[in-house]
């Protein structure tokens, strides 16, 4: 599906229209087969009436056979049209759902690091699960809506053709029924909305219990939470019963109102039969029409309901489509590298080919690295070119943080960088990150569960480090790369990282002396600005705030 661009401030119909415009063929086929199906159904009472009049009352066996044959032929058309309509509806549903999932996925990847600040993960996920299906349902139900309308029109005109009076009764009666049933609809919708809300909360509660099950099973409180869930579940039950009360009025009315119309038609028809203006077969046909009309009327109600929900879903999808990254896409300047990277706000300079260490508070570290990585706007220059103007920023710099996640899939390919690299590079990265034992413990082809759940914190950290090293960017920023790793391993990693990154620019944000004694240059930042730089021993001697940050006594 083509990206429709940002929705701007357009209404919820916009996205539904975008979807529709994407599959005009399918929609046409859906409506077309729907109409054929509806007509083949609508003609059944008429054929029955003819069969009774000509074949049975008229005692004409060949006419009886002929009309029965027509009935069977109508049945075949029905079967064909119904099946084809269904198939194209499924395709439309899936097309809309798949297309929408892809669109919102692309929006998520384009928004990047800014995503969690703009929309909660839970909200995004519910868009991806629930709203995607809902808008697809609107498209799917479109075909049924069209065929319902056509059916009503076809039946009405068939009736008008055989008896104007009865036809008019039905013609006035049907909208009257709709109008009479309408007031019953709004309490139902209100309660249904309330029910959905409570049910959503209930599901949230279940998810919460499941997500925290480890904790619950570990320290207790299962009963407390199960009881709380039970209470919420009972609230949903009561609300469900309220919905049922409103819905039961509706379903009673759906029997009663068309039923009364049916009686009226039958009564008028019977009188017409008695005075000879209508045949018995025609009376049966009228009865058939009046019974049959209930179905398309119900469909129209359903279409209205689903469409209403669809507009809500569409609005939420459009909110996602409107997301923009904090930092505009890369610039166009082709700059030869390597060059020093300078963060004007803090005064930090990364010199090419060196391993620099940054000792700063977590907040300062986060702010500086976000600017260096172009995840946040800021006055950063590469050589003398503004960082934002450089064409291939993403290829040149990588900021690896501990919040980075490992993606599900086969282990080795999930560590490999986006660009194809020789297998040896990946092996080397794994060796430098001291992650070979992790890879060996599962096997290189093993499928990693989402977020690398089966690994311990330290193992995950080494796998992440291996992935960052394998990407081998010109400028690599590692934030606390070994905070969950034991001292031995940390020392070993710090010892081999420098040689492995030879000729490239590296920044390690850490307070561990194991790193600080091994890097080329240490920079200390307080309150957002560089306050001291030099070697670890120099800084220990010169800066009390540095000493207190790195001290381990």
């Amino acid at each position, binding site marked *: 599906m083509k990206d429709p661009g940002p929705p701007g401030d357009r209404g919820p119909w916009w996205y539904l229209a975008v979807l529709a415009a994407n599959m005009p063929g399918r929609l046409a086929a859906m409506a077309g087969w729907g109409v054929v199906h509806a007509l083949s159904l609508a003609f059944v009472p008429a054929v029955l009436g003819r069969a*009774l009049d000509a*074949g*049975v*009352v008229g005692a004409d066996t060949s006419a*009886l056979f002929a*009309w029965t044959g027509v*009935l069977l032929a*109508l*049945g075949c058309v029905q079967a064909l049209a*119904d*099946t084809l309509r*269904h198939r194209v509806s499924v395709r439309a549903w899936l097309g809309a759902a798949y297309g929408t999932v*892809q669109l919102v*996925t692309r929006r*998520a*990847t384009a928004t*990047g*690091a800014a*995503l969690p600040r703009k929309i909660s993960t*839970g909200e995004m996920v519910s868009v991806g*699960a629930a709203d995607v299906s809902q808008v697809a349902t609107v498209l799917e139900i479109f075909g049924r809506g069209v065929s319902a309308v056509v059916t009503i029109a076809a039946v009405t005109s068939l009736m008008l053709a055989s008896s104007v009076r009865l036809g008019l009764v039905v013609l006035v009666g049907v909208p009257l029924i709709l109008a009479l049933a309408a007031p019953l609809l709004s309490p139902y919708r209100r309660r249904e909305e309330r029910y959905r809300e409570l049910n959503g909360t209930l*599901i*949230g509660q279940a*998810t*919460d219990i*499941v*997500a925290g099950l480890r*904790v*619950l099973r570990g320290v*207790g409180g299962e009963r407390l*939470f199960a009881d709380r869930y039970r209470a919420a*579940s009972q609230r*949903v039950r009561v609300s469900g019963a309220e919905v*049922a009360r409103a819905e039961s009025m509706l379903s009673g*009315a759906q*029997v009663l109102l068309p039923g*009364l119309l*049916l009686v009226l038609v039958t*009564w008028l028809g*019977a009188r017409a*039969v008695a005075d000879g203006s209508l045949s018995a077969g025609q*009376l*049966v046909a009228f009865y058939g029409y009046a*019974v049959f009309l209930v179905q398309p009327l119900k469909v129209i109600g359903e279409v209205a309901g689903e469409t209403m929900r669809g507009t809500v879903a569409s609005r939420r999808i459009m909110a996602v489509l409107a997301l923009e990254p904090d930092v505009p896409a890369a610039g166009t300047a082709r700059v030869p590298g390597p060059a020093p990277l300078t963060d004007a706000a803090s005064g930090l300079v990364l010199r090419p080919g060196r391993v620099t260490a940054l000792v700063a508070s977590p907040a300062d570290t986060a702010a500086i690295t976000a600017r260096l*990585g172009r995840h946040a706007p800021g006055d950063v220059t590469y050589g003398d070119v503004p960082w934002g103007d450089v064409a291939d920023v*993403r290829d040149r710099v*990588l900021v690896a*943080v501990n919040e*980075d*996640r490992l*993606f599900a899939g086969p282990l080795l390919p999930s560590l490999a960088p986006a660009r194809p690299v020789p297998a040896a590079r990946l092996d080397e990265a794994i060796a430098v990150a001291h992650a070979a034992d992790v890879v060996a413990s599962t096997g290189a082809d093993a*499928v990693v569960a989402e*977020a690398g759940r089966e690994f311990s914190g330290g193992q995950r950290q080494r796998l992440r480090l291996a992935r960052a090293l394998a990407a081998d960017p010109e400028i690599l920023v590692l934030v606390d790369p070994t905070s969950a*790793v*034991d*001292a031995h391993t*940390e020392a070993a990693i710090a010892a081999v990282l420098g040689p492995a990154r030879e000729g490239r620019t590296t920044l390690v944000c850490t307070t561990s002396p194991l790193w600080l004694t091994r890097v080329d240059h240490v920079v200390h930042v307080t309150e957002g600005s560089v306050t001291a730089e030099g070697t670890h021993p120099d800084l220990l*001697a010169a800066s*009390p705030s540095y000493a207190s940050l790195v001290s*381990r006594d």
Partner: protein
Amino acid sequence: MNARHLPVASRQQVRRYARVLLTRHPRALAGVLALHAAAAVSGLAAPRLLGALVDGDGAADTIAVALVAFVVAQGVLVRYAYLAAARLGERVLAELREEFVDRVVELPLSRIERAGTGDLVSRSTRDVEQMSEGVREAVPDTVIGVVTILATVVALMLNGPLLAAACLVALPPLYLVTRWYLRRARDGYLAENAAWTQITDGFAETVDGARTVEAYGLADRRHARGRDDIAASWTAERYTMRLRTVLFPTMVLAFVLPVAATLLAGGLLHARGLVTLGQLTTAVLYVQQLTGPVETLLYRLDEFQLAGSSLARLLGAGEVPPDRVASGERPRGTEIELRDVRFAYRPGQEVLRGVDLTLRRGERLAIVGPSGAGKSTLARILAGVDAPTSGSATAGGVPLTALPLDDLRRTVALVTQEQHVFGGTVADNLRMVGESLPDARLRAALTAVAWDGPALDVRVGTGGAALTPAQTQQLALARLILADPPTLVLDEATSLLDQRAARTLERSLAAVLEGRTVIAIAHRLTTAHDADRVAVVEDGRITELGPHETLLAANGPYAALWTSWHGPTPTLATTSEDDH
């Protein structure tokens, strides 16, 4: 993959459970059935009366009055039948989901610790939803369908058995195709669901890892994964669509066939004077009326199957075999002792290879060692989560995994890095260990963990204030203080705090936990420095055990570890500070 996924209940189990559900409320069920039957019967009057009209039996006006009476009766009956069915359905549904949650919170500890909860999340959301749709829509429709079909068939027989026989022509195709379909549908829909879950899971992963995707330029890879998932979903969808492509036309024809047969047979019988025109009319209308309920029934079979497969997954959560059987032995004391403990997650790959350890009452033991040496496994065995593959892990002489869970919790508690903030107030997050704990004790526990988060009555977690990872850990530790078991196992429980905060927290924790046995696994050696004893775990064994000073003096692996971690210039730092 199988180890990670929870079991799914078998068809027999699902059927048995469905029967139990149905028979649990016999009176309500009987009421629903009676009301629906009455509604169905009153709906059968119209064709019969129309037949009478056609035959000229009785005045049109009288018949019209009777028709009105039946229509009104049907309307009223349908309303109450619907209401009764929905109320019963909501009740059953509530029981169903509550029982599911009951099963979930009873899941074996070791299973959750090792397998995670990803699979359960989809069961508690998607499957519960699917199930409720089934119970709210498919079940009542099925009940109505069955009752209406039965009533209509009886009415057909009463109207004229000869004509009724004509609708039998529909049975063979319906039976054959439905059987063919049902055999394939369950697996087809399960595959379809699984494929759809892949799509939403992949999406959730992309959303959750949006920063990573941007930093590593993985957008194309994520899009490709999405395309693969969609392709797989399309394959699954196409399969069920093919099933329906056979089912649907057969159904439609199976509806038209009996109408045509009744018409033809009736016409021929009428010509011989065996049936009246009215009887024929009534029969044709009845056969036509059957279409609705039969169609609904078959249409709902899909949803029934879906609800059935969801139910199978909901019930499956209860099928995990318990990981501990209380032996009934009463422990003498609470001292934990490990004897030649070996442990392997996979046969032949031992993670622990013969660990002996006797904990001293009230001591603080630090466990250190390289990543992957088996420290976390050791923690799980000490906390009674996993039983050793061989050897023994006992408290007061009784194997930890032979203690009832409540007793185990009173003996030892484990806090790991993996924490969760429950949706609710800060107090709710603490009171789970004891519902009657007064606020003052909650506050005291928070003070002990140097709590810097929101006040007790502030909502946190889903839909509330967000807590930092460090605050999440503080909350977990406060919970532990309140639970107050004699032995605590902390597996990197302060690793997400920065070094300084972690040290402060550990010291204030030590004061609160005075007299408790604390086993702390930490990669920060300050923890070891502050402990009474240090155990160095390497390659599945304890290679050194003793107080910090003794181990330093021994100049073994721990001493090497300490020197490298502490940095070669520790004295400089103090001197420089002294200078100022």
